[in-house]
């Protein structure tokens, strides 16, 4: 119960309970640590320097020979990529179909002359009306000529 002194609020706060630690908490925590990282709990880790080296180790941790080999491998991979890229791209030629076009000259002049000739023929045809054309057709067909 709160007291009548100036610290009644603190006395009230003392009424608020915390939480009991569940039984077996430490064991479950230990199991989780082992599950998350097997072996860590048993074998003390003394730092990064004692970790086994892997192929992905930083370059400053590799010997000179390994650095040289790594540089050679990198250069070979780059060369392979460039060669393959050239073969697949520019070396293979253009991917677009090439259309051969005459460069003008005599052929072009003769073509233009032919076009004009054809135009003249077409203009003469346009002069003929539909009736005239029909009459000509009827003349060719004896049955139609009798009807007329």
């Amino acid at each position, binding site marked *: 119960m709160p007291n009548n002194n100036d610290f009644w609020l603190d006395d009230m706060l003392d009424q608020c309970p*915390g939480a009991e630690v569940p039984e077996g908490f430490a064991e479950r925590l230990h199991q989780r640590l082992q599950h998350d990282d097997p072996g860590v709990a048993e074998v003390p880790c003394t730092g990064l320097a004692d970790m086994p080296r892997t192929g992905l180790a930083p370059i400053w941790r590799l010997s000179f020979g390994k650095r040289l080999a790594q540089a050679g491998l990198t250069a070979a991979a780059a060369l392979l990529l460039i060669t393959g890229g050239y073969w697949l791209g520019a070396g293979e030629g253009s991917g677009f179909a090439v259309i051969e076009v005459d460069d003008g000259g005599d052929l072009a002049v003769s073509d233009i002359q032919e076009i004009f000739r054809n135009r003249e023929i077409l203009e003469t045809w346009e002069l003929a009306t539909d009736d005239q054309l029909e009459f000509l057709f009827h003349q060719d067909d004896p049955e139609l000529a009798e009807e007329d």
Partner: protein
Amino acid sequence: MAEHDDRGVQLMLAFQRGDNAAFDQIVEEFQGPVFHMLRRLLGPHALLEDLAQEAFVRLYRARERYQPRGKLTTFLYRITYNLALNRSRDDKRNKLSALPVDDQGRDVGLQNPDSLTPDVPLDQGNWARLVANALAELPENQRSALVFQHYDGLDLTEIGEILGISPKAVKSLLHRARTHLRDSLQPYRDAEQ
């Protein structure tokens, strides 16, 4: 150095040197305060044990980079506080997971502060519930500062390190927290007299 006199720091340094039994000792000594803190920051919660486990797992993983600056409790409480803060924010985003439960994880339903009125005589259990409700109604940072000061006995500097604010700001938070609590609890106190 002063911090090396701290029992927690000594244990953590021993653990850092490879003494795994020292970590077990840390868990043994600090599991209670961690559970109490989580309970007072979050109220009844289904995930208290998960959060407490996570706090110690993070302490375990911090072995290599741990540096003895101040007490171990400040370091451990900061981890725990951040976990509680994240959980509280997650709960606000997802109201379903924030349903209160008792210490055995059973759903106790939403507590209604109106069910306790100054004219109803309060027994010991009701006082506890009343104070817990009043604490829960405080803003997050005020509640945290008050919990660290009153229940964990931390000073302004230590609380500031955990909350990431200056000691002066902590003092201001504590003043506001006590004012709010006084306003909430005064009617019940007066009714008791």
